[in-house]
């Protein structure tokens, strides 16, 4: 199967500081790569490079044959990323914002509503549908942010440490959601410290070591 993502000796340095040591890997369409490593090893930086919000200062990065650039509409349509906290609509309920985001990708509002309800159910937050974002706990916010990222269509999914602030039951739900996307043929890059999540969903594992080249295995 064709490589969806191909990274060759890509690294990031800013003002002499290395944020990501050179790393190489390739990932075929529909496969899942788990990026693991200690804090500060460059996992989030690698995801940012793949999401096109940061440029590699060395090496090459190709996603569907092109350099990642979030300014490109076609790239934005292809890649969904959950890196840090996305923009939340403070005056809209969880369900309403999911519908608004879903509808922005071309589906009609009724379809977006059905999709929003399904996502709220999938992430175990259906009973929170009519809450405002500030009324959520940190774990609930985490689940909602993941639901938001999944509310938009994409063929490549980038997720940064989805296990943060989640209890074991919620983590199982996140694993279920990722497995479901795998079954749909989605290519996934997941940065994680959760051994159980990595073992459950990853086809391949890339270990980043601060100051050293990453190794895929």
């Amino acid at each position, binding site marked *: 199967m064709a490589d969806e993502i191909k990274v060759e000796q890509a690294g990031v340095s800013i003002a002499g500081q290395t944020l990501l040591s050179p790393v190489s890997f390739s990932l075929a369409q529909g496969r899942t790569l788990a990026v693991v490593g200690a804090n500060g090893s460059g996992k989030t930086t690698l995801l940012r490079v793949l999401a096109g919000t940061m440029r590699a200062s060395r090496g090459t990065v190709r996603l569907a044959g092109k350099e990642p650039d979030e300014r490109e509409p076609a790239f934005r349509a292809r890649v969904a990323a959950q890196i840090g906290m996305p923009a939340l609509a*403070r005056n809209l309920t969880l369900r309403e914002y999911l519908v608004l*985001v879903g*509808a922005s*990708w071309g589906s*009609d509002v009724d379809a977006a509503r059905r999709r929003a309800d399904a996502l709220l159910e999938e992430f175990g937050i259906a009973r929170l549908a009519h809450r405002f974002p500030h009324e959520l706990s940190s774990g609930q916010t985490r689940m909602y942010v993941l639901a938001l990222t999944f509310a938009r269509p994409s063929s490549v999914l980038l997720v940064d440490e989805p296990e943060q602030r989640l209890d074991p039951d919620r983590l199982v739900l996140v694993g279920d959601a990722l497995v479901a996307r795998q079954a749909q043929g989605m290519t996934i890059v997941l940065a994680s410290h959760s051994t159980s999540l990595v073992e459950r969903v990853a086809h391949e594992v890339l270990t980043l070591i601060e100051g050293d080249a990453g190794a895929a295995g």
Partner: protein
Amino acid sequence: MRPADRLQVLRRAYAQRADLRGLGEHAYAVYLALLLGPLVGYPVLRAAVLALSEPAVLAVLGSSGAATGAGVVFGLLLAAALWFGGLYGPVTLEPALVPLWAGTDIPRSRSLARTFVGRGLVMAGLVTSAAALPTVVLVHTRAASVGAGVSFVLMSAGFGAIAAIAWLAGQAGERRFVWLVGAGISGLAVLTGVVPSLLALTPWGWVGAAWPTADTPGVPARALLLAAAVAVACSTAPRLLDSLTVMRLGEDAEKWHATSVAVVSGDIAHAMGRLRARPSSGRTWRAVRDFERSMRFLVADAVGGMRTPVRFSVGLLTLACAGLLLAVAPAAQAGWVLAGIGSGLGYLSLGVFSDGFRHATEAAVSPALYGYSDATLFALHFTLPVVASAVALVAGLVAAQAVGGAGSGLAVALTFGLAVVVRAYDAAKGPLPAILLTSIPSPFGDLSSLNVVIWQADALLIAATAGAAIAALVHSGAETTAIVATVMLGALLLAGLRHRLARL
């Protein structure tokens, strides 16, 4: 140890903290006040007195409706004090002081009394000063007697005490209840303006009746009634202080600490974000409807805005007032001053309808969530502020006709249109450039803070200046020039917005 002694010990211990201002810092503050007082305070005060001494203004101050107007203003002030308490209460402490002052077995009516009395006196002082300003002008121009002036100012001070209690009640009360009571009071205040005979039944009516030029009979009786109302209000203060929860005190302390840090570091947008009211009502209203996308965003933004009803209503009302000022400005003498104020007010109140711009900026710096480009998302969020401006324009023109002014729709439309663009431009401002913090030594101290203030207020300054210029151009008949200049400035600002978004 008695509670009073324990509090004394706590105060002494706190007064010896390491980060306490030293003598040098206090001396510098006094030095700055002595320098800035004559340089800034006096001219502003003098300008205000001169403006109030204009024959047209004096005619309004001395008119038969002035007492009613003053009464309504006092009524609205009471509602505002209550609402303000919901946002920033008089008993807002340093976070570290909350467990010390409110976490022990000492009744909060004792431990928090000093803090409340201090802030309450500030509130009462501000109300008294605001009342004293027109009074001084009226007495000075012999439109009112000294006795009438003193009587009005004293009654205003009494009302200031009631407002201070309302401020505390706003902090102590359950938020939804506070908003509702505030809405009820403001509605009643407006009603008393429409039916002035009702003023005799309200505390604000009693103060209004003492307006220096009103010559209303029965002012001493009203003063007695007001004194009784002040006594009743003050008697509730201990109970209100005791009802303050440690949770609320902690929340307020943390919020204001974070806000003050953000302001000091120049991040006003973040600070305002922390203060912005959170939605609490209307969660079952349908905000996202199956409409064409610009209409969908208009409805979503409008319903989202109405979920903070007080903020939304105050924003709309202020925008309409700005519309009135802008409408009458071109025909008024020195109308550019009115237009500058109206434009500034318009810009500030449009903030209520511009949450979408802030959201679009946040979305622009995050990985793509919407299926729209950043520019399209910004454009979709233009709809609500434009529609709100149109509503305020019509309201302003109608009000201008009602007060007998010849309204200029063109000046209002141009100013509001530009203010909306300025709002979008300001939403993508980004962090304070570090170079602005470079020290600028002067006899007044380090003037780098002036740079920071100008940087923070640039959008407001642009809006106010442009509004004044538009009014001046329309007044002089150069309407085409006004249109061309506004369009050019708007285009420049949109280019600036694009540049800012690219840099974020």
